[in-house]
């Protein structure tokens, strides 16, 4: 099959049927398939082979858990119970730490006016809502893949996002929907990127579009990916915190690289129940840095220290600078 006549290779066509092609190539494959009788024949051949293979079924006898497994299971669970004797202390420590973090966050919120726009009305609304545990995964997914791609792109001006790599959230985590050309990566973050003690950590409505520049794609994106993987794997917050700490300790997670930043200029995002789509802004990432080095939170300074990573397991300082326009060039509300 010549690629002059067929824009996709036969192997790619097979991958399309297996659901293994990225969205952009899948769309191309589908468009071509509708017109090409040769490829339609190949498709029918692949389907035929799969159907014939399904003839080979294996009837499994109805057997329960064997006595050997039962014994091993009993032994393991007994050991586990014995090990629990030393756990209460640890548990108390974790709980204490949580309260310390929660307290620290409250102090930070008061001290820095919590990122620019929290009104008392919004705070009341925030307290009134609650997301004590993870909702079903479906609630965090965007059913229309193209809609998520468009939302991700809306984080930055088209001149940046049109050539950016686009990630979308699937059942198994973030996956590449469109390959990029300029080193930027656009995606829509979910609520679990909020501080672990945030009341909205499990808010399924959160859709936070952002575009990482190449430096942040190398150093901040892995953190989002890791948190997402852990959430989808069902880890507890304590386990996630431990894992992130270990990740930074063993260098699995990088510290922010020089110049790491991202665009958050979407007017269609939803950052949390308190601020909605917030205001368009840029975020800059550093290894732990004193906020005074940026003049953050000083009177009339446009720079704010974002509490996202404050007192969390990530050794990252993040500054926020609001900008005057949304990514589509329209004027943003005056803060």
């Amino acid at each position, binding site marked *: 099959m010549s690629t002059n006549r067929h824009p996709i290779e*036969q*192997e790619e066509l*097979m*991958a399309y049927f*297996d659901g*293994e092609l990225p969205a952009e190539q899948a769309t191309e494959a589908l468009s071509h398939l509708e017109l090409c009788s040769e490829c339609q024949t190949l498709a029918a*051949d*692949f389907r*035929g*082979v*799969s*159907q*014939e*293979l*399904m*003839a*080979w*079924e*294996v*009837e*499994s*006898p109805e*057997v329960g*858990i*064997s006595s*050997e*497994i039962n014994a*091993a*299971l009993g032994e*393991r*669970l007994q050991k*586990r*119970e014995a090990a*629990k004797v030393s756990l209460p202390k640890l548990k108390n420590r974790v709980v204490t730490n949580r309260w310390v973090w929660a307290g620290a966050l409250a102090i930070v919120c008061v001290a820095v006016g919590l990122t620019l726009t929290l009104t008392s009305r919004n705070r009341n609304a925030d307290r009134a809502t609650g997301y004590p545990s993870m909702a079903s*995964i479906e609630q965090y997914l965007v059913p229309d893949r193209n809609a998520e791609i468009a939302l991700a792109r809306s984080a930055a001006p088209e001149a940046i996002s049109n050539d950016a790599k686009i990630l979308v959230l699937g059942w*198994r985590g973030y996956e590449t929907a469109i390959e990029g050309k300029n080193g930027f990566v656009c995606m829509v973050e979910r609520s679990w990127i909020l501080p672990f003690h945030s009341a909205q950590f499990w808010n399924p409505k959160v859709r936070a579009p952002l575009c990482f520049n190449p430096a942040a794609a190398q150093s901040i994106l892995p953190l989002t990916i890791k948190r997402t*993987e*852990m959430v*989808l*794997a*069902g*880890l507890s917050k304590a*386990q996630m915190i431990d894992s992130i700490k270990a990740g930074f300790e063993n260098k699995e997670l990088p510290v922010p690289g020089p110049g790491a930043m991202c665009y958050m200029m979407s007017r269609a995002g939803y950052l949390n129940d308190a601020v909605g789509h917030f205001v368009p802004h840029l975020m800059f990432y550093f290894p732990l840095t004193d906020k005074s080095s940026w003049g953050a939170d000083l009177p009339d300074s446009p720079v704010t220290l974002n509490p996202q990573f404050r007192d969390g397991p990530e050794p990252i300082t993040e500054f926020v600078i609001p900008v005057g326009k949304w990514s589509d060039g329209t004027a943003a509300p005056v803060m």
Partner: protein
Amino acid sequence: MTSDEALMLEFQGGSRAAFEELFARYRKPLYGFFGRRLNNPERAEDLTQETFLAVIRAASRYEPRALVRTYLYGIALKLLAAERRKFLTSSTSRQSAAEPNTVGTPDCVLWVRQAMERLDAPEREILMLREYEQLSYSDIAELLRIPVNTVRSRLFRSRLALKSYLESEARTNPGLRSSAGQPHPGRRGTQ
């Protein structure tokens, strides 16, 4: 429904119910895995149980880096490799395996099995992991420690080869073709 990964972590945390749920979800698929690769239903059942034993013994070391599904088939592949090594060193096993029990096996199943046996072993394994275990290309690549592109190209070759073998078989036995490839309640492999 609780995810497999969440169940695995619950089991790691001491939940027997979580293990029982995983057992219920994966006993039949694992039996099918071994059943198609060994001509011995008893060993298929033994190895299925051994897979779960390995899960119990390694539970404290489990890390949710991969899907539980992939993790289980990773264990199953190791057990299968050990079984095959054992089989190669046992003359009695070799004799008994040389002639798989086909009594009562429908012709269309024999036909598929024979066609599969004509594939190169690595390509056959990839095809089976994809078609029967429904693993993704990247899961297969991870389990077999080969690049994803290799998985794709071998899968492509094996499907084309299998199609050719099946067509050639259909020409030889035209009556079989009409019944193959369509779901039928009586179509069961007996192993």
